[in-house]
């Protein structure tokens, strides 16, 4: 059997995502957002989703579009209050969506822990703050620590730069952010890559996400950038 995780279309890539799924979506602001995969999920129609992302969507594309489509019942993120996160803010203020705010490093580590089979960890982050309320705490080395549990995702939607047919991935600049942690944390990791190269064309020394964490790959050679488009409009 030849291993080949490539799928021909975005629709094939998101096939089978079920209602109620926990979907981790890579990206920080717009850097690393798998916008085309998210739009495919809008088309696919799964609902009652819990979305894990650093933010809660900006502008009108990507996660904002998924939120506007009414497919998301809960967002787990660190910072939902960006200037352009209008869609989320409206839903939240109308009481139509649940929000779990997690410190950014704790969010990344909860994903990593999930992918690494760790049942939880104690962190000093959020000790003595409202975000520690209701959580187990312990003094370690004289310092208050808070117990944080892994975030197990059913699906991860990831944007990569290069992929090979096995699913080895590289990323571009700061677009990497949460993607490697989410790829580990999900039962089904779906990748949109700018380019799919031949097996062996990524130097093993340069692989950032090894193929074992990846299930499906689709090539999106010219992904949309809402921020770049807005800047062009402003300069026109």
């Amino acid at each position: 059997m030849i291993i080949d995780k490539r799928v021909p279309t975005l629709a094939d890539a998101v096939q089978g995502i079920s209602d109620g799924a926990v979907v981790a979506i890579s990206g920080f602001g717009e850097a690393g957002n798998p916008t085309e995969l998210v739009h495919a999920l809008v088309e696919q129609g799964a609902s009652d989703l819990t979305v894990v992302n650093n933010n809660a969507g900006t502008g009108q594309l990507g996660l904002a579009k998924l939120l506007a489509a009414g497919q998301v019942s809960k967002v787990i993120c660190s910072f939902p209050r960006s200037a352009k996160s209008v869609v989320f803010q409206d839903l939240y203020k109308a009481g139509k969506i649940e929000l779990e705010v997690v410190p950014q490093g704790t969010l990344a580590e909860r994903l990593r822990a999930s992918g690494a089979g760790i049942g939880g960890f104690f962190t000093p982050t959020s000790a003595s703050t409202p975000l520690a309320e209701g959580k187990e705490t312990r003094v370690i080395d004289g310092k208050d620590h808070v117990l944080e549990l892994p975030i197990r995702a059913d699906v991860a939607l990831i944007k990569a730069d290069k992929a090979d047919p096995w699913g080895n991935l590289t990323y571009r600049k700061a677009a990497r952010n949460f993607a490697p942690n989410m790829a580990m944390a999900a039962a089904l990791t779906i990748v949109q890559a700018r380019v799919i190269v031949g097996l062996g064309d990524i130097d093993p020394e340069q692989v950032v996400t090894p193929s074992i964490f990846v299930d499906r790959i689709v090539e999106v050679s010219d992904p949309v950038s809402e921020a770049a488009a807005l800047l062009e409009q402003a300069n026109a």
Partner: protein
Amino acid sequence: MSTPISGKLNRDQMAWRVAQDIPGGSYVNLGIGMPEMVANHLPDDRQVIFHCENGILGMGPVAAPGEEDFDLVTAGKKPVTAVAGAAFFDSANSFAMIRGGHLDIAVLGAFQISAAGDLANWSTGDAGTTPAVGGAMDLAQGARDVFVITEHTTKDGAPKIMPQCTYPLTGAGVVTTVFTDLAVIDIHKDGPVVREIANGLSFDDLQALTGATLTLDADCKALSAPAF
């Protein structure tokens, strides 16, 4: 206070003053807003490596118009550059640098600071505002030194350095030094100690603008900065 204070610093001068206390060779994270201005005021001969929590070590200046790359942005999502020697990494690794005690200094803004060095900078507890924390709690807890840059009082003149914070905390006992437009104040075990004070302001004047009880350092100097 109605009379202007002659030695009061403007925002660039405040950023300059913070920069003077950042030793060469430091790994430094600058929070969003006024902390970002600190990068503009480092002496040219002092090499410092800037960390950006979305996965950059060696962050350079903001990208020039036409050179923007939206895969390379600051924590505030502004297009930025990377210097020679920069590195990219994932978010878990980025926060391992912060939480693991590898980051020398975080420069953060503040709503309030307590006498014990508690920091409140993420929420006013206002029920009408969507809660959002970002990396603030990790930075407050993890950085070896936490420098706070803030006006000494709120726009309404209320003190920001308090006996205890009334806003929800970002972290307890985390602040090292507070740099305001009127003073430089180190948080010692037994409370805030004034290291520098603006010209035209007596210690009693400063205390009157401060909620927490201050101590005057025996070597207290004048707070001064070049004109910007």
